[in-house]
C-alpha cells in the first residue's frame, strides 16, 4: 500500500495552502464468481491500489482520486484542486470540520481461513453444491442466479492533524435470485449475505440448505397460499422485515447530511429536523441503534473514513428520537462533534454520512409469545418488493414468505401481504418486541457518484398492532 504517497499528498496540499487535508491509500484484492442456471457464468479476480485526497482551501472543499500512483500525478491533481477551490470561492459553502482527537491506530479483522489462500476450485464448488441440492429437490426452479465473492481491503488514513490509522477488513458475500414455478405461477426470492471475516464464514453459511429452504418456502406459498387479509389486523414482522424498516425509516432520515440538504438531488432529504430530537416516535421499549462494532458485520469498522473512532449511536432511545448520524462536516454545521459515521465506498469516493449496522434492540418476549397474543394477523417472514419516499415517510413492504395467524397459531401461507404505511404509523404501532435479534445484509446506496456500501440491518420479531394491510 502507498502510505508514503498518502502522507506526501497531505503535506503537499498543506504546503499549497490547504487548511485541512486527509488522504486514504487503499489496496484491495479479491475474487468473484457467478453461476446462471447451473453454468459457471463468470469468474475473475481484482487487485487495485489507489489514493483519495480531500482538502479544504479557504473553506471550499475539493476531493481528488487516482490509481496512477506517482508524486507527479498527485502534484498536478492537487494543484488543480487548489485552483478549483479558489475559483469556486465566490459561491462555495464554507466547510468546517468538527473537532476530533488525533488518532494513531492499527487494527485488523481476523480471517481464520484466509479467503486469498482458498483454491478457486473450492470456491466454485460452493456454487455447484447449491445447484446439486436444488436439483435433488422436487421444486421447479427454472431460473437460478448465484454469485459469491471475497475481498480484503487494506486502508491507510492520514490527515493534516496528525491522525494515522491502518486497517485490514476482509469481506465475503453471497447473492442469489431464484425463480420458483408452480401451477403456472412464478414467485421470486433474492437473498444477500455479507460478513466481515474469512472463508470460514462462507463454509458456515451452509448455502445449499439455506437456498433450498427459501425455495421450499416459496413453493409452499405458491401452492398453498391464500389471499392475505386486508384492513386493520395485527402484523408480526420477522427480523428481515424489521431490519429493512430500521434501515429505511430510522437510519436514512437520521443522516445529518440529508437533513442539511446535501443529498437533495440524489438520495433525498428527510422528515427529520434537529429540533425533533427528544420527540417521541414509539413506546418506551423501542430502542434503535447504529453500531459499526458488531463483530462479523458487513458494516464493521473501528475508525471511520475521517479517522474518527466509531461508536454505537442510539438513534431512538426509550422510544424518543435521540441522536443523528454525523461526519465532521455535518457535526460542525449543527455545532456538535462527529459520532464516527463517515464512510466512502472506496478511494475514488468522498466520505459521506452513512449507516453501518442499524437494528432494533431486543426486548423480552419470544417470537412464540408474540404470536400467541395475536387473534387475527399476518406473520411476514421475508419481503421482496419495498420502497420509501425521499423524505423517508411513506413506505411499502410486500411480503414474500408469509402466513396467516389465527388465535395464536400460524395456519396457512398467505400471498403477498402489502404493508403500505408511514414511518410514524409503523413506529407508533409497535406493541411487542422479541428477544432475539436477526441481522440481514444489504448494499446501501447514496451520494454522487452513487456509493454502495455494505451494511447490516436487523432486529427481533415485533408485533405491529392493528395496522392496515392493503
Amino acid at each position, binding site marked *: 500500500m502507498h502510505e508514503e504517497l498518502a502522507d506526501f499528498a497531505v503535506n503537499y496540499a498543506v504546503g499549497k495552502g490547504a487548511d485541512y487535508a486527509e488522504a486514504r491509500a487503499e489496496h484491495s484484492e479479491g475474487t468473484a464468481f457467478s453461476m446462471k*442456471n447451473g453454468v459457471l*457464468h*463468470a*469468474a*475473475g*479476480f*481484482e487487485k487495485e491500489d489507489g489514493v483519495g485526497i480531500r482538502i479544504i482551501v479557504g473553506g471550499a*472543499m*475539493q*476531493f*481528488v*482520486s487516482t*490509481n*496512477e500512483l506517482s508524486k507527479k*500525478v498527485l502534484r498536478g*491533481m492537487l494543484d*488543480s*484542486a487548489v*485552483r*478549483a477551490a479558489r*475559483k*469556486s470561492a465566490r*459561491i*462555495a*459553502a464554507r466547510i468546517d470540520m468538527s473537532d476530533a482527537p488525533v488518532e494513531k491506530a492499527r487494527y485488523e479483522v481476523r480471517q481464520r481461513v484466509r479467503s486469498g489462500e482458498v*483454491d*478457486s476450485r473450492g470456491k466454485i464448488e460452493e456454487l455447484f453444491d447449491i445447484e446439486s441440492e436444488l436439483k435433488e429437490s422436487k421444486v421447479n426452479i427454472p*431460473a*437460478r*442466479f448465484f454469485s459469491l465473492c471475497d475481498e480484503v481491503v487494506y486502508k491507510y488514513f492520514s490527515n493534516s492533524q496528525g491522525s494515522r490509522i491502518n486497517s485490514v477488513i476482509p469481506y465475503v458475500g453471497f447473492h442469489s*435470485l*431464484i425463480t420458483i414455478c408452480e401451477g403456472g405461477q*412464478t*414467485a*421470486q426470492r433474492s437473498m444477500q449475505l455479507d460478513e466481515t471475516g474469512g472463508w470460514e464464514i462462507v463454509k458456515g453459511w451452509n448455502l445449499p440448505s439455506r437456498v433450498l429452504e427459501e425455495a421450499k418456502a416459496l413453493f409452499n406459498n405458491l401452492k398453498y397460499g391464500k389471499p392475505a387479509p386486508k384492513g386493520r389486523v395485527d402484523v408480526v414482522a420477522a427480523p428481515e422485515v424489521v431490519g429493512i424498516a430500521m434501515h429505511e425509516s430510522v437510519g436514512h432520515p437520521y443522516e445529518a447530511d440529508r437533513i*442539511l*440538504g*446535501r443529498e*437533495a*438531488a440524489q438520495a*433525498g432529504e428527510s422528515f427529520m429536523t434537529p429540533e425533533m430530537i427528544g420527540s417521541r416516535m414509539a413506546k418506551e421499549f423501542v430502542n434503535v441503534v447504529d453500531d459499526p462494532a458488531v463483530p462479523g458485520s458487513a458494516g464493521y469498522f473501528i475508525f471511520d473514513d475521517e479517522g474518527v473512532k466509531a461508536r454505537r449511536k442510539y438513534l431512538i432511545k426509550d422510544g424518543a428520537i435521540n441522536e443523528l448520524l454525523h461526519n465532521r462536516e455535518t457535526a460542525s454545521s449543527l455545532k456538535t462533534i462527529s459520532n464516527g459515521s463517515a464512510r466512502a465506498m472506496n478511494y*475514488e469516493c*468522498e466520505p459521506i454520512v452513512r449507516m453501518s449496522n442499524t437494528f432494533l434492540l431486543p426486548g423480552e418476549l419470544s417470537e412464540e409469545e408474540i404470536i400467541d397474543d395475536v387473534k387475527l394477523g399476518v406473520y411476514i417472514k421475508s419481503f*421482496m*418488493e419495498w*420502497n*420509501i419516499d*425521499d423524505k423517508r*415517510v*411513506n*413506505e*411499502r413492504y*410486500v411480503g414474500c414468505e408469509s402466513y396467516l395467524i389465527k388465535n395464536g397459531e400460524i395456519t396457512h401461507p398467505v400471498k*403477498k401481504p402489502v404493508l*403500505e404505511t*408511514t414511518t410514524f404509523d409503523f413506529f407508533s404501532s409497535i406493541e411487542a418486541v422479541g428477544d432475539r435479534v436477526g441481522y440481514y445484509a444489504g448494499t446501501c446506496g447514496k451520494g*454522487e*457518484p*452513487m456509493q454502495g456500501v455494505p451494511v447490516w440491518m436487523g432486529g427481533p420479531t415485533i408485533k405491529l398492532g392493528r395496522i392496515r394491510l*392493503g
Partner: protein
Amino acid sequence: MDFALLERIVGRAEELGADDVVAIGEEARAWQTKFVNNRIATGMSGYDKEVSLFVSKDRKIGVTTIKEFSRRSIEESVSKLLRFTKKMQPNEEYYGIAQGPFKYKVVKGIYDGRIGKLEQRATDFIEGGINAALAEGAKRASGVLKYNVKEEFLVTSSDARSSERSSGVYFSIRALADKDASGHKVCCSTTLRNFFPERTGARAGRIAKMALNPVKGSIGRYDVIFDPYPLANLLNIAMDSASAFAVEAGFSFLRGKLGRKVASSAVTLVDDGRLPHCLSSSKCDSEGVPTRRNVVIDRGILKTYLHNTSTAKRYGVETTGNAGLLSPKPCNAVLSKGDYGEKELFDEVKRGLYITNLWYTRFQNYETGDFSTIPRDGIFLIEKGELTKSLKEIRLSDNMLRMLLNVVAVSKKQEQIIGWEVEIPVITSHVLVKGVRVTKST
C-alpha cells in the same frame, strides 16, 4: 494508453495458451462539482487508467482488471489469470468471440475537446443553473455538474482493433420552492453544443413553483403523462430486461415473449449504439463488433433480445453488437417519437396525473413485471388537459407489461436522459399511459 500495450497483453495471454482474449484499455479523467442549497459543496476530480482483460481456455472463462503497467506487473496479472481460468469449469454456453477484422464507421459527435477544459467555466454553469431556478420561483437548488473525457482501446485475439475518444457532460438540478414543492431536471450530452444548464435550472424552478401547496393524492387508476425524466427510469429497466443474460437469469419480464405483443403499437423501443451525441454511443462493442441500431420492440412486438456472440449462437441469430466483457448490455435506449405535440398530449387527458420524477423502483417479481415506484418532486392532477392541483404522497403500483400495453400516445419532442437511477442513456419523449394504478400509505 496505446495499442502497443494492449497488443502486448493479448499476445502474452495467447502465448500462455488462451484461446480467446479481449483487452479493453481506458484512460479517463472525470470532474464533478456538487452544489447544495445554492452553494458549491465539493469539487471532485479523478484520473484512472486500466485494462479490462477477458480470456478463455477450453471454454473456461476468466476476467481481471490490470491497473499497474510495469512489464513485471503485466506478466504477473496475465499469467495469474491464465492459471486461474484453467481451474474453472467449462462454460457450456460459451461460443467464442466475434472474428475480425472489422471495418468501423466513426460515430459522430461523441467527443468534444472543450469538455476536458471546463474547469474555468464549471462554476459559471452552476451559477447560471441555480440563478435560473431561483428566478422562476425556487428558494434553493441542489445538484451536480459532471464531465469527463476518456480514450478507449480494444484489441482481441480475433483481429478486432479499435480506438475511440469520447466525452460527456451532465447537469442535474433539483429546485425547491418549499419543503414539499420541488422540481428536478437534468441535461446531458457528449458535446457542449447540446448542453444548456441554465435552461435546465429554469425548467426545474418552474416545476417547483407549480408544485407549491400540494395536497395528498388519492388511490385509483389514472391516465398518467410521464415527463421524459421519470419515463427514462422505467425504460432503462425495460431495456436492461432485453439483455439475453437478464432474460435467462430471471431478471426480465420479457422472458418467453419473442415475437409476442409486449407493448401497445405506439411503442417502438430501439437500442442504438450509433446515435450522435448519445452518451453510450461507440463504434464497437466489447468483442469489437460494430454497433448498430436494434429494434427491440417494433410497434409493440418484441423482436429481439440483445446479444453477444455466445447468446446469439444459442438463440440462432446474429450478435446484435451488445457484448459487454461477460454479458450482453444495452447501449442507448431510444423510444421512437410519436405524433403528438406536448399540448395535444395533455388535451387527451380528461382526468389524470402528470408525473415529473420517479425513484425507488423495485420489483416483486422481475419475470411477471410486478413492481412499484414512487413519484417524487412535482406531481400534478390533470383535469380537461389542464394542471389543476399539486399532489403528494402517492405510489405507482403496477406491472411493466400492463403499462407498456397501455401506452396510448407519445409526443414528438425527445430528450436524452441519464440520472441518479438512470444508468443507460434514454432518449424519450412525453408519454401517456392509460389506467396506471396509484396506491398510497394508509
